[in-house]
């Protein structure tokens, strides 16, 4: 409940300041436009479109999701948070906020891909939905803990992609594989190993984040 209250505060604040939403919207718009211009009238393969989808999602996450903690640091309200909530509440609240942002962002990106790219054809929607669900959860968890780490650093902009790349790489590779399977029309049961990897990644990242957050949050 306390974490939900923190999320509510963050969401209300976001609606007033548009701190992350504007950055994300602009990034998505610009990236997809650049891809469309560079492709022109060329026909690209289905697999390549699937790959591009996750590339756009990865870089959009880089540009918007760090804001959860960075905005508090920049406004000087980190200490205020220290004084009103336990570290686990803060991490949970920020995670809910990033989950919502990731799902919104990725729905928009996937929707734009489906209407703008003819080669973006998913034959097994259920498999894609499963990958999308667990993938988004993984991106949100990883981005939240990385955002907490980099918010204390002086060169936040550089550090975020540098730290994110090795942490998100196994997730993105699994998601690319699953998207390829969904495009081929493979069944959910035949993709069990990749789905299990995805779920394990989420569980490991969530556990590690809760264990580490106390140390990160302490000055």
């Amino acid at each position, binding site marked *: 409940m306390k974490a939900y*209250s923190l999320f509510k505060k963050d969401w209300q604040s976001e609606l*007033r300041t548009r701190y992350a939403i504007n950055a994300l919207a602009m990034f998505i718009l610009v990236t997809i436009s650049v891809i469309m211009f560079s492709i022109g009238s060329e026909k690209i393969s289905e697999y390549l479109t699937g790959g591009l989808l996750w590339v756009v999602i990865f870089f959009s996450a880089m540009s918007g999701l760090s804001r959860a903690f960075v905005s508090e640091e920049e406004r000087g309200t980190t*200490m205020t948070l220290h*004084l009103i*909530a*336990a570290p686990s*509440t803060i991490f949970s609240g920020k995670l809910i906020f990033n989950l919502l942002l990731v799902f919104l962002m990725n729905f928009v990106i996937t929707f734009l891909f489906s209407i703008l790219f003819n080669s973006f054809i998913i034959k097994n929607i259920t498999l894609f939905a499963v990958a999308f669900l667990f993938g988004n959860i993984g991106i949100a968890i990883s981005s939240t803990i990385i955002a907490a780490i980099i918010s204390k650093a002086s060169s936040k902009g550089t550090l975020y992609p540098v730290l994110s790349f090795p942490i998100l790489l196994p997730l993105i590779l699994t998601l690319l594989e699953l998207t390829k399977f969904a495009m081929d029309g493979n069944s959910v049961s035949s993709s069990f190993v990749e789905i299990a990897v995805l779920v394990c990644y989420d569980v490991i990242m969530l556990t590690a984040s809760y264990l580490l957050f106390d140390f990160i949050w302490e*000055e």
Partner: protein
Amino acid sequence: MTNYTVELSNIVKYLGRRLIFDGINFSFSSQHIYGISGPNGSGKSTLVKIIANLISPTRGKVIHKNNLKKVESVKLHNHIGFVSPYLFLYDEFTAEENLLHFSNIRGISFNKERSDFLLNELKLIDRKNDLVRGYSSGMKQRLKFIFALLHQPPLIILDEPTSNLDNPGKEKVYELIKKEAENNLVIIASNEDSDIALCGQVIELEKFKRAI
């Protein structure tokens, strides 16, 4: 009436290689006002941050007890009211929205009656629905007092409590501090003579330096 105590046991703090203070041993207890004084850079803010569990000491222990029971560090935030120049509230919210969010995040129900009482005492009641962005520095300082007192904490830590306040504001703050000290523990870190004059005992940080 609560019996809140804070025990500082051999507190040492280094910032990088610079020693800030060394070997502070002190006990604070309810119904008293304590002062922490020293020149600029002597570590007043650092010490109050250590007491409030915002930063850790390099060595030593801080033990908080409420009615003789040790307070767990994860629950400490709800026992502390904190005012400081480096504390910021959310500019994009009104004063009342800030207080409402803080209560909800603390997990306590928002006491509108107390909120209005404090807003009235500190002359912010007419501006409670204005965004904090439009407040003057003095008004923000008064709002910080409400933030610190709203949840009725047994420990109130005030770092430079009267900075940015005009004379009537200072008088009101002194009145509130004395009233709070009837039941609670108040610690003031300041250089202002008038702030320190309220304190029964004062820790002079200059005495806790050693040559390195």
